[in-house]
């Protein structure tokens, strides 16, 4: 034995992972990244493992990324989405999932609108759970792929690196998971956006809070820019997408005013011209598409490492 293992049986959030866990995922992801760049992209690591992707909330890229990761690992995959489910018929989450497990499913990848839903499952069902986003709480694999991308870009030299997360911090599961992950890896984090989109007590996480995007960009080495969705907010926290773009959007002019080059990230999907302009998203400083590639490798690593915790 002696093969390193994760300290957890589920990846419900970054909060539950140790620094060592994160580095183990990075190392494994690095290997899988080489695999998926080979002519034969598939390995038999999860043969005979069945994974259910349960998406109780819409997703395109996270779902595709997980499915691809599972298939590259030779797992058997079933997909389930809320629109075609019995959830609408009044069945509880635990019942729904237990029914699926009795079809002999080993691992569950779940996205759910309620914060804590994967934690509930982890307590009540006999399978490894991977959280693919629980409401406005966590999105651990996104944070892992984000930090992995930074890690690779800086050749592992990430301690002390300054990252600003720009946008709708209040409604973002990406922001919270990012902060946990980055802090565990020794990075400094700032959040930036309209004050109405930054929860009052966020600074108690040990992050800096800034409302001026130009100052935030000047401070950072890396800017992770979040998607803005005014149309989905039930309460209007800021006046308009237009004003957001003008005063909080990251554009070429803002970058040209900086005394240095910074790395540009975005978890997608991008609203071009709102939180980020095309000339920034497509610039040489952007690693947005690398993030997508790393997403598959990181998810392969997470699934692989979790499977190896099975007895």
């Amino acid at each position, binding site marked *: 034995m002696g093969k390193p293992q994760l300290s957890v049986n589920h990846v419900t959030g970054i909060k539950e992972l140790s620094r060592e866990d994160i580095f183990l995922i990075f190392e494994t992801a690095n290997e899988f990244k080489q695999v998926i760049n080979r002519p034969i992209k598939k390995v038999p690591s999860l043969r005979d493992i069945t994974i259910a992707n349960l998406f109780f909330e819409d997703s395109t890229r996270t779902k595709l990324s997980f499915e691809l990761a599972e298939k590259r690992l030779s797992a058997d995959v079933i997909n389930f989405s809320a629109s075609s489910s019995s959830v609408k018929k009044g069945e509880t989450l635990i019942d729904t999932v237990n029914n699926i497990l009795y079809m002999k499913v080993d691992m569950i990848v779940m996205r759910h609108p309620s914060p804590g839903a994967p934690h509930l499952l982890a307590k009540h069902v006999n399978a490894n759970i991977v959280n693919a986003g629980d409401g406005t709480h966590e999105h651990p694999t996104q944070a892992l792929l984000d930090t992995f991308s930074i890690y690779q870009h800086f050749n592992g030299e990430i301690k002390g690196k300054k990252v600003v997360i720009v946008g709708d911090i209040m409604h973002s599961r990406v922001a919270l998971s990012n902060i946990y992950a980055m802090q565990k890896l020794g990075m400094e984090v700032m959040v930036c956006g*309209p*004050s109405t989109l930054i929860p*009052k007590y966020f600074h108690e996480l040990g992050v800096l809070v800034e*409302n001026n995007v130009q100052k935030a960009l000047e401070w950072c080495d890396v800017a992770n820019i979040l998607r803005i969705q005014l149309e989905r907010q039930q*309460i*209007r*926290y*800021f*006046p308009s997408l237009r*004003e957001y773009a003008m005063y909080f959007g990251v554009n070429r002019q803002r970058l040209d005013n900086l005394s240095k080059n910074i790395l540009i990230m975005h978890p997608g999907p991008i609203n071009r011209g709102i939180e980020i302009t095309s000339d920034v998203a497509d610039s040489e400083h952007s690693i947005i598409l690398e993030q997508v590639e790393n997403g598959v490798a990181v998810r392969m690593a997470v699934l692989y490492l979790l499977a190896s915790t099975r007895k």
Partner: protein
Amino acid sequence: MNCLIKKARVIDKNSSWNGKIVDILIKKGKIEEISDEIIVENIKTIGFEGLCISPGWLDIGTTLTEPGHEDLDDLHSLQQSALKGGFTGLAVFPNTKPSIDNKAMIDALIKRSSDFAVDIMPVGAVTYSCGGKDLAEMFDMHSSGAVAFSEGKESLQHGGVMLRALKYASMLNLSVINRPDERTISEIGMVDEGIDAVNIGLPGMPVLAETLMLQRDIQLAEYTGGSLIAHMVSTADSVKLIKQAKRDELKVKATVSWHNLVETSKILKGFDPNHKVMPPIRNKAQRNALIKGLTEGIIDGIVSNHTPIDLEEKRKAFSDAAFGALGLEQMFGVLRSKLQDVVGLEILVDKLSNGPREVLGLEPATIETGNDCNMTIFQPDQKWIFTKEDVQSKSANAPYLDMELTGKVIGIYNRRQLIIS
């Protein structure tokens, strides 16, 4: 325009000349020289008995009816009212039709008044159309010159919107101006709740309506770290709340309407619709508390609550008449006449000049050599009779017509213009 002002007493707590009688030479919009005596020939010279000068007076929350109701007042007639009353600046409310809720409206207003002697400072709407719901584009309005945000004549009822407004405006270091009035409590009231209302058979507005909302607003200011201007407070309870808020070092400022300083609800027995104003004129105890709050520095500025109303809307029984009265033209004279024994000239003038600028966070217009000249010129002890001819507004709803007043405005100097009325 160049001019020389002779033998004028400076009333400006920020000036090193405060309290002194001096000559002032103004050239090309700047104060060129201040000294005991200046002799210059061939220059426009102003000399009057008992002359005083102070930093230009600023009114917060003046009603603007252009666009929408140019029949009541347009920018030009509004400027004339301001000049008559000694005001060099008006922070106008956004309740026009359409509302001043976007950059284009702010730009237009500033452009339309660019050659004025009076600074027209737009207060942008907090929400679209002052509808109390969705935040308007404050950053954009600020970039064009909005000096604060407010729903103007309307009190912002929704606590959540007020919270977000204070938070959002705080990024711009601008204040939200709100007149505290919980409408579900004041509802159908027309006058101050009390024995005077009972005696004239009119429904009252309880003090409570103001207290409840002011408490809410102060707590929201504390929670958000935002700046609140409690506009036109009218009760002793409000003075107490503001005193405490200031003691707690919250970013809270307060204004009072002149109506609430000069009159008590006893006057309503005459059923004069020009005394039907919002907030209502309250009883003696409330009035005394406001005066005390003013002299103790709890209330920061006096405002005119200048509201032009269509003649037909005032030529009605009190209960049917619209709220509002004109105030810019006669306000100083009435204040001076009615408060001479209780509010000293220095404090009164400070609450018209420096006070409102501090409320809005503007630079002071200090009377000092080298500064841009923004100044009001007046005779605080001069007697005159306020007549119809003095009303510059297109509307006619001015209280105190034909009354002999003490305290007369001579004119102003601002934006390189000397205007003697």
